């Protein structure tokens, strides 16, 4: 949602089914939500995100609050739907996603996907050194673009606990990175603009 929209107006329009409003909401939130679901190992992140957003639609009448509250609220739903999926599949989220985003696999450039793959593997290895709680907090902060108190609301912990988790998580990540040694930065391969 751009400031020009006005969050309240956007939500009002969304409630009556205005396409621009849902497009705006989706555009604003979907990359984060899909990214979070993907990182947490959802089988089909886009599909699950579709479910999340449909539940957003259905439960919108119960939502009250501002734009940042809305963001946190959507992630609460995303987290519930993910838990539902795990229950359906009768499995625990034992590992992070091994699936690269599909866009990383359609390039004609042979080298670029390899670099992305390497960067992705490194991210997974490093995240793998974190506890599940630390992983989730960092993913919500970084991929979900949530502030500390919003993460706290999503995971049902205090802000202090979230801060502690993110510090410990980053410390663990830094340690893991130092063990990885010097790796060529994959940043150059990560230009996502098309």
């Amino acid at each position, binding site marked *: 949602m751009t400031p020009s929209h006005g969050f309240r107006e956007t939500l009002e329009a969304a409630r009556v089914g*205005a396409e621009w409003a849902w497009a705006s909401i989706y555009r604003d939130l979907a990359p984060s939500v899909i990214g*979070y679901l993907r990182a947490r190992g959802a089988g089909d992140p886009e599909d699950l995100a579709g479910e999340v957003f449909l539940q957003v*639609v259905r439960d*919108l009448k119960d939502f009250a609050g501002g734009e940042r509250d809305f963001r946190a609220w959507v992630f609460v739903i995303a987290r519930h739907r993910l838990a539902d999926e795990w229950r359906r599949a009768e499995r625990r989220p034992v590992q992070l996603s091994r699936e690269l985003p599909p866009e990383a696999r359609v390039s004609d450039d042979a080298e670029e996907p390899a670099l992305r793959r390497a*960067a992705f593997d490194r*991210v997974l290895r490093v995240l793998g050194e974190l506890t599940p709680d630390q992983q989730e907090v960092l993913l919500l902060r970084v991929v979900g673009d949530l502030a500390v108190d919003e993460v706290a609301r999503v995971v049902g912990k205090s802000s202090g606990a979230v801060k502690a988790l993110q510090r410990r998580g980053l*410390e663990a990540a830094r340690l893991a990175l130092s063990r990885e040694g010097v790796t060529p930065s994959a940043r150059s391969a990560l230009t996502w603009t098309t």
Partner: protein
Amino acid sequence: MKPISKLSDRELDRLLAGEVTPGEDDLAELATFVHDMRALFREPGAEMDTLNVAAMVEAARLEAAGNATRDPGELSPEQGSAGHHGSWRSPMRALLAGNRRRRLAVLAAAALVVAVGAASAFGTARDLFLGTRVNSKIAFFSLRDGRMDTYVMNPDGSEQRRLTLSAWDGVPIWSPDGRRIVFLHGRDDVDVYVANADGSGRRRLTRGHMGERLFPGSWSPDGRRIAFQSDPGGGDVYIVDVDGTGERNLTGDGSSCCPSWSPDGRRIAFTHSWPPFPGGSLEIHIMNADGSGRRRLLRNGVAPLWSPDGERIMFVRLGGPGRRGWAASYIYVMNADGSDPRRLTRMSEVNDSGPAWSPDGRKILFVGERDRGSRADGRRSRNFEIYVINADGSGKRNLTRHPGFDFAPEWSPDGKKIAFGTKRDGNFEIYVMNADGADQQNLTQNPATDRAPSWSPGRKPGS
């Protein structure tokens, strides 16, 4: 090296927001890791998942319909077509049932109501007002410059250029002579705009409505007036002159949508909901182009579209959940007086959507979700195909036959080619094929999203 525990909250926020520049700080490795994590897990960013958004829009409308305290009776398609009114409630349940195939089925049905899609062919009507026609063009959306803009290109894919500068204009609908476009524009409030085919001379035609909607049949055949729906949650059918004057509410019931102008310009068919939308049953009505002489043509039907010769009207009937629990929609054709409605598509084609008359009125293009498969990259398929069927219901053919996702078909003005959107190459591209499905070619060839082709009427290339 500063321990993480010594970083201030603000420094941590900056690090996690990716604001620490790698290489300029002893947190370089960590900053790179954070950046990679964000970039790799998130989608490329601006690409819209058309289906998810459309599903949200429909779900919101269906939810609103549910709140209108309608009896949520579930009807079989057979009951529905026997004159009973289909209920919105069953699609809503199906939509929320959490299964993509089912959602898509419901969505495809609902999409017809709102006519999300490209302009259809009104060949005969256009031919009455040929004048000096311009060369035919294909308009489309593209994200290639980082945001969703409308572009045009020649039918061979050459001369692709940006037409509008706007983040979310609706699909442009070409005037009968191909010289102008009408489209929706606006952020806080969407309004109807008209512009020359090259995007110049933009003029706002409407203001003050809740959120106008345009339809394939929005242009009057003489190109002088635009019919539109005033409010996405219901509203009325209005007309306005292309100079922005003479706006009139033709229905005045707050519960009508989806106008389609008859090829002779004298009548307008539209969808009416009673009790008022959302929540009512959906009927097809017809009126004179001045709003007089209104009457119901048919119970249980939506999205009327006149045949190019004005003799028939295609419409869609929404059914309840079918044998496999999916909501169904069926393409019908009836005589323009409402008699002899005939179903063209069967139970199995639950996802018929976006039907379009061929310029000669003999065939109809539609999108169906038939064959399943997996894409080349191994992801699960959500596989729409493009079908053609004779207007009498015979000769149905799958034209695309591709494990990729093909949709939004659009006839060329001469009926010899079909433009369509596809995700077969991993991202959205616009393809063109012969009317028999042969010679499928990528027109856009751009790594960014390109979709929603809209083929303008016009002189055939070289003629």
